C-alpha cells in the first residue's frame, strides 16, 4: 500500500447531512499535510437533502484522475448503516470496510461525530503520524466542535488499531 508509486484510494459514503464531505476533507488534509499529492472528488449538488453522498480521496506521490475507479477502493468508510450495501461495489477484493457497527462498542458524545470517528479508525491503517492528523483536524474542524471530534477520532483510532491487528494476524 505504501510503495512510492501506488495511489491509496478511499471512498467515504453516507447520507446528506452526515458529514461525508467533512470526513473526506479531513483525510485529504492529512495527505496534504504529509506532503503527498492528493485529489478529492465528489458530487455535492444535493448533498444536504438526505440523499446518498459519496466522496473519493486519492493520495500518493502522483495522482491523476480524482475519481476512485470502481472496484479499486482500498478503504470504504460508510457513515450510514443502510448505505453499506449500495457502496460495497467500490471496494477492491480485500479492501477494508469501516462501517458504523464497528463503533457500537463506544459511546460517542454526539452521533454527529461518527464521521470523524470512522476517520479515526481509518487512521490506524494509514502511514500518517499524530502530528499530521492534528494538522488535518486543525485545518478541517471549527474550534468550537473540536473537543468532541478529537474524542471521537481517538475512540475510532483505538478500534481501528484492533481491527488492523486482527486483519494482519489473519493475513500473516
Amino acid at each position, binding site marked *: 500500500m505504501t510503495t512510492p508509486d501506488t495511489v491509496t484510494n478511499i471512498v467515504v459514503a453516507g447520507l446528506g447531512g452526515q458529514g461525508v464531505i*467533512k470526513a473526506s476533507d479531513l483525510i485529504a488534509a492529512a495527505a496534504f499535510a504529509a506532503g503527498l499529492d492528493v485529489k478529492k472528488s465528489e*458530487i455535492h*449538488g*444535493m448533498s*444536504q*437533502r438526505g440523499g*446518498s453522498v459519496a466522496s473519493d480521496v486519492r493520495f500518493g506521490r502522483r495522482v*491523476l484522475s*480524482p475519481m476512485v475507479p470502481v472496484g479499486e477502493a482500498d478503504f470504504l468508510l460508510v457513515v450510514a448503516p443502510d448505505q453499506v450495501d*449500495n457502496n460495497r461495489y467500490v471496494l477492491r477484493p480485500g479492501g477494508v470496510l469501516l462501517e458504523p457497527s464497528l463503533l457500537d462498542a463506544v459511546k460517542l458524545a454526539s452521533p454527529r461525530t461518527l464521521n470523524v470517528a470512522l476517520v479515526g479508525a481509518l487512521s490506524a491503517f494509514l502511514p500518517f503520524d499524530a502530528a499530521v492528523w492534528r494538522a488535518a483536524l486543525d485545518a478541517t474542524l471549527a474550534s468550537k466542535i473540536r473537543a468532541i471530534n478529537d474524542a471521537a477520532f481517538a475512540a475510532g483510532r483505538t478500534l481501528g488499531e484492533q481491527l488492523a491487528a486482527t486483519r494482519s494476524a489473519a493475513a500473516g
Partner: protein
Amino acid sequence: MTLPQRQLLSGDEAIALAALRAGVTLGTGYPGTPSTEILETFQKLGGPAQWAPNEKVALEVGVGVAFARGRALVTMKHVGLNVAADVLFTVAYSGVSGALVIVSADDPGMSSSQNEQDNRRYAVAAGVPMLEPADSQEAYEQTFAALEISQRWGIPVILRLTTRVCHSKTIVVDNHAPWSPAATAFEPNIRERVMIPAHARPAHRRLREKLAQIEQWAETAPLHNRADGDGRLGIITSGIVAHHAREAAPHASILQLGLTYPLPLNLIRDFVASVQDCIVLEEGDPYLEDALRAAGLKVRGRPAMYRFGEFSVPRVRRILAGDVTPETAPPRGKPPQLCPGCPYRTVFDVLRKLDCIVAGDIGCYTLGALPPFEAMHTQICMGASLGVGLGLRHALPADQARRVVSLIGDSTFMHSGLTGLAEMVYNPPATGHVLLILDNGTTAMTGQQEHPGTGRTLNHEPTGRVSIEAVARAMGVNHVDVIDQVASTEEFETLLRARLAEPVLSVIIARRNCILAAAAIRGYENAAKAATASCCSGDCGCNSAPADAASDS
C-alpha cells in the same frame, strides 16, 4: 486571510484565488451548481463579488465593467449561459476594452441539472475563445490566461469547466505575482460599442480577424500538454478526461488541448501524424471529433453510447478496449428529499389534496415531483412555471384548466419570473390563473445564497430589497396574498381552494424561511438591526459584516 503558497483547492476556489491575484474589478453571476463557490470564495478572499438577479444581467454588468477597461469575471452554470446568450453573441462583435471572462460550469452526467448540454458549442456559435482546465492548478493558470487573451484581443473568453473540475480538490501552487488593479476609464467609441447593423457588419469582420490571430497564437501557446508514448496509440482530449486517459493508458501519446476554440490545427495535425492510431476522447458532444474530422484529420471518436454521462478511468479503459457492451449501472442509492421540517412539504400536501395540475420550476421544490408527493407535473427551465402554466390554462378544458397552478421559488421568481408575470397580466386565461410563489428567504437549492428579494448582498449585508408582493400588485394582479403556509395550513388550503374556484388572477406568496437557513437569516437580521440601532456614522465599525453564521458540515 493568509494564503500559503501550496493549497488544496477546488477548481472553483482556484479560479477565485486567481481572480484575486489578477485584480479582477468585479465578479458577478447567478448561483448555480457547480459554479456557485467561485464568487463566494472570491468574496471571502476579499474580492468584490455580487449576485445578479440572473445570468443575463450578470453578463451585462460584466460587459459594462469591461467597457470601462475593468476586468470582469462572470460565473454561471451551463444552462445559465442560455439565459446570457443574447448578450454573449453580440458582445463577441463589440469586443471589450478591458477583460471579460465568462465561466461556464457544465454538468456532464447531470449531477444537479436539467440537461447535459455541452457549452463548447457556444464558443463556436458565438465566436469566442474557450479554455478548458483539467484540475485546480490549470483552473488557476487558465484564469490568468483567459484574462490575458481577453485583454490582448479585446474579446470575451469562455472558461469552461465541468462538475468534476469545479468540485474536485487538487493541489494548487499559488505562483503568480499579483497584477495591479485595472485603471478604469470611459472612452467613447460609438462605432465599436453600439451594435446597429452599420456598425455590426464591420464588427463581425473584426471578430473573425481576431479569431484568426488567436488561432495562430494558439499553435504555440503554453496552454496545451503533449506527452509522447510508444507511438502506437494517440489520444486527443481536453479537461478532466486528460487525467482519466493518462491513468488508463500510460503508454499512449496524449495531446491535452487547453484552448479548445479556436483549435490549433497544425499542432493537432503534427500529433496525429506521430501515432499509428488516434482517438478523440471527450465527454458530451463529439465536439473535438467533428471539428478534427471536418479538418480532414484521421481520428476516430468514442462509440455513441459514451456520449451520455461523465467519464472515469474505467470508462476510458472500456473505450480503448473497444467495449460496447452495456455498462453496469451502480447500485441505486437513496434519492434526495425535501428536508424534514421543510416548509414546502405543507405546500405539496395541499396541492396533492386539491388534485392540482402543477407547472413547476427549478429549485429544492422540484423534489415535490418525487414520491411521496408527486405533486409537480412539469419542469423545464428557470421561470418556465409561469408560461407553461398559462399555456396549460389556455389549452385545457375548463374543468382541468381551473386546477392549474404555476409554482416558483423566490430566487427563481427574481431570476426569470417577472416577465412571466407580465404575460399573466397581459394575456390572462379565461379561467384566470394562480401563481404560487414559495418564498423561503434564500436561494436554498444552491446552498443558501442571497437574491434581490432577501434585501441582502452576496456578503449578507443589508441592501435594497425587491418586494415580491409589491411587484405583483404593481404589475396588475388584483389578488395578492401573503401567508405562512405552515403556521396556518388550513387557511392556506382554504385560500388556494377559493382562488382556484374564481376566474381571477391570483398570486399567493407562501412565506416561511428555509429550515436550513433560518438561523443564519436570523443572525443577519439581528446584525443589521444592531448596526442601525447603535450607529450614526459609517466609520465606527459597527456596520462590519457579521461573523460567518453559516457553518458548513
